[in-house]
Each structure stands twice: as C-alpha cells, then as structure tokens.
C-alpha cells in the first residue's frame, strides 16, 4: 500500500519548525564567548560520541560513514560560528561609532531599504546593518572593518586578515591564506554537500598550490577538525583583542575632537565586557 500523500500538511509541519527554538545563551551578548561556546560544543559532540559509542556494539563501516558526515557538519558549524563572531564584533563597532561620526564609514555596509526594514527589529543598529550580509570573504571582511575603524580623516591600516607580511600584525599573512581556504571548504560543504566540483577544485588548487581532484567527496578527518578549531580559536582571540584596541583608539580620537561626545570611563566600561578584555579610552581603564 502506498504511503499517504503528505501534501498541504507539509506546509504546516515545516512552518512549525520555526517555533522549535530555544533562548540564546547568556554569553550571546559577548561575541568571543559566544564563539567559544559554540565551537567547543561542536568539538564536544565528537568527544560525546566517542565516550558513548566506544561501549556500543556497532558496525565499523556504518560508524565510519556516519562519522564522516558528522565531521563534515562540524567543520561547517565551526565556520558558521566564526562568521557569526565576525558580524557580532562588527555590530559592536557600528553601535559605538554610528551616532558619533558624520563621515561615510558605514557606507561599507550599505543596504537596500527593504533589507534594513526587515532587520528593523534587530536589537541594535549594528546588528541590523551587519546581520543581513555575509562575512565569508577575507577581502570583504578586511574592507568593512578597515572602513568602519578608520580615523577621522578616513585613513586606516587595520586589517582583520593581513594579506601582506608588511601589514599589521606583521608576518600573519598565512592566516589570510588559511582562512580563504577554509571559506572555500565551507562553501563546498554548504552548497554541494561536500562534493568538490570542477570549479571548487580549480579554486582550491590555486589556494593550496597543489593538485586537487574532482569530482570528489570531502571527508574531513578528526585531526582536520582539531586543526580547524584551533586555528579559528586563535584567530578569533586575536581579532577580538585587536578590534577592541582599535575601536578604543577610534573612540579616543573622536573624544579628543569633541569631549562632550561621551564620558571615556563610561564608554570603556561598556566595551570591556563586550570584548571580554580590558579597554582603555583616553586614559580611563575598564576591566571586563
């Protein structure tokens, strides 16, 4: 007997998924803590499976096949958490600068009216402007942060992912290259379920400077995930610290030009917990 048609019931069932959601964790207001929590949860999933499946009577081939899929999902989740971290950090910068500048620094996040309208209920202007765009390209991310965190003359040498050895922090251009490869792997998993297409292979070949076969299914190993997590953890820590410092410098410059804009001690006290690190503005130090 054929199964009954799902038909219009599907529409309600799928719509119901939207309601199956939980509250955000408290640390969601602190980008670096939010990132650490999510990336650690992803890693702990592997440890959890190890602990519980090591006692189970399982078929090795099925286990390997399912773990390959889990590993792919975890790689995707790590990249997603990192992208979210970037946009949450950018949103903080926008929130603390938007009402204090008249220049065009926020044009780098220019949105259509309909897009802004859709995000009008976002908690803050920063979130409204930053959440609706993707942060999956090192050059775009560099451009946005460099403009948002420029000085009053519109100049900036701030690079989230330095592309050249001479850009600060010096000799970290390998992070740019590594991140670019990771974004491409994310793309392959998210959009082709892990199949390295001909065009993916071409891009990856240029990125890693080694032959890449296609079509092939990408199967990240445990050690690949460990390396990815460690790289993203260290990169997120570095970006968090550098953006906090640069934002404090920008605010100090604005304060020097108009010391009625804000009270430095109050501003530092607002920023330190958001970046989970000490922040100094115009001599006023605040701890998280």
């Amino acid at each position, binding site marked *: 007997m054929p199964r009954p048609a799902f038909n219009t019931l599907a529409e309600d069932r799928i719509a119901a998924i939207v309601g199956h959601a939980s509250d955000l964790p408290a640390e969601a207001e602190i980008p670096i803590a939010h990132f650490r929590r999510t990336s650690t*949860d992803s890693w702990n999933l592997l440890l959890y499976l190890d602990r519980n499946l*090591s006692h189970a009577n399982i078929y090795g081939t099925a286990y390997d096949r399912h773990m390959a899929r889990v590993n792919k999902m975890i790689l995707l989740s790590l990249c997603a958490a990192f992208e979210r971290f970037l946009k949450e950090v950018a949103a903080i910068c926008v929130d603390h600068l938007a009402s204090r500048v008249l220049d065009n620094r926020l044009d780098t996040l220019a949105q259509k009216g309909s897009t802004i309208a859709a995000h009008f209920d976002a908690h803050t202007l920063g979130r409204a402007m930053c959440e609706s765009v993707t942060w999956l390209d090192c050059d775009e991310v560099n451009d946005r942060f460099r403009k948002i965190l420029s000085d009053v003359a519109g100049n900036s040498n701030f690079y989230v992912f330095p592309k050249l050895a001479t850009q600060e922090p010096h000799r970290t251009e390998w992070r740019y290259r590594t991140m670019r490869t990771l974004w491409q792997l994310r793309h392959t998993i998210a959009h082709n379920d892990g199949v390295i297409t001909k065009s993916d292979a071409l891009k990856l070949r240029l990125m890693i400077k080694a032959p890449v076969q296609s079509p092939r299914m990408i199967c990240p190993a445990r050690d690949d995930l460990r390396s990815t997590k460690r790289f993203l953890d260290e990169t997120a820590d570095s970006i968090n610290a550098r953006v906090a410092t640069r934002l404090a410098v920008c605010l100090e410059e604005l304060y020097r030009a108009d010391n009625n804009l804000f009270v430095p001690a109050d501003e530092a006290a607002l920023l330190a917990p958001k970046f*989970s690190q000490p922040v100094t503005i115009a001599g006023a130090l605040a701890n998280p």
Partner: protein
Amino acid sequence: MSIRQRAHYRLTTSELAQWLDQQGDDCWWSIDGDPLLTGLVSLPCPSGELAEALRQIRIPLLLQDKDNNSQAAGQSVLAEDLDRLAVTDNQGNRSFLLGWAHAPASDLGWLLVEDRETAQSSSSSSSPTSP
C-alpha cells in the same frame, strides 16, 4: 537528577586547579556543558590554562561520586582525593561530573573531560609561538 540529589562532594575551584596543575600541560581538557568556563577559555586546552580560568572563579563546586552507592553527602574533598574520584574510560581519558554549588537544583552539571587524542596531536604539531 541533579548532582545535589546524588552522592556528591564539595570542592573548591582552587583545589581542582591545583590538581590540574599537577597533571602538567601534557594533559588537555575539555568542558562539556558549562557556559561559564567555555566562554572564558578556548577548549580543549592544556591543564594550566584551565587551572588559571578556574582560579578566576571563586564559586564552590559539587563533584558527583562515581560510585552510585556512595554515602557521600557534600563532604569537602581536596586535590589529593581527585585521582581516586576520576572516572576513566577505555581510552584512558579521565572525567568528572561537576556542578556549581549555587546553580539551581534542576541543574544537571557539566563534564570535565580529558582529551588525550588532542594532547597527543598537539605535542607533535605545536609551534612555540603563533602570532
């Protein structure tokens, strides 16, 4: 069932930090289920990093006894007791089920879990400094 409803001990974060220090930085650890510690430190991490994070938190811990028939009812334990209270899995990873003493009664606690595989991988791949 929460830790406080089971056989459990009390432990200070400084005692746990001391025990972690004694394990050395060749041992790596992860925390499964605690937002406070996972927000403070990138995990898995070596013993010393976790010990440092724990010392910033001055909240007593509850430690579930691995023996379900134990009569433990909140007695204090020290760093020197933790070797015998650790649960060891068949891969040699030690773990503890812990909870914060001030957490609501419904809190199910969180796991401190050793990650020997990462420790092994890190010892062969670490560079002294990474900018």
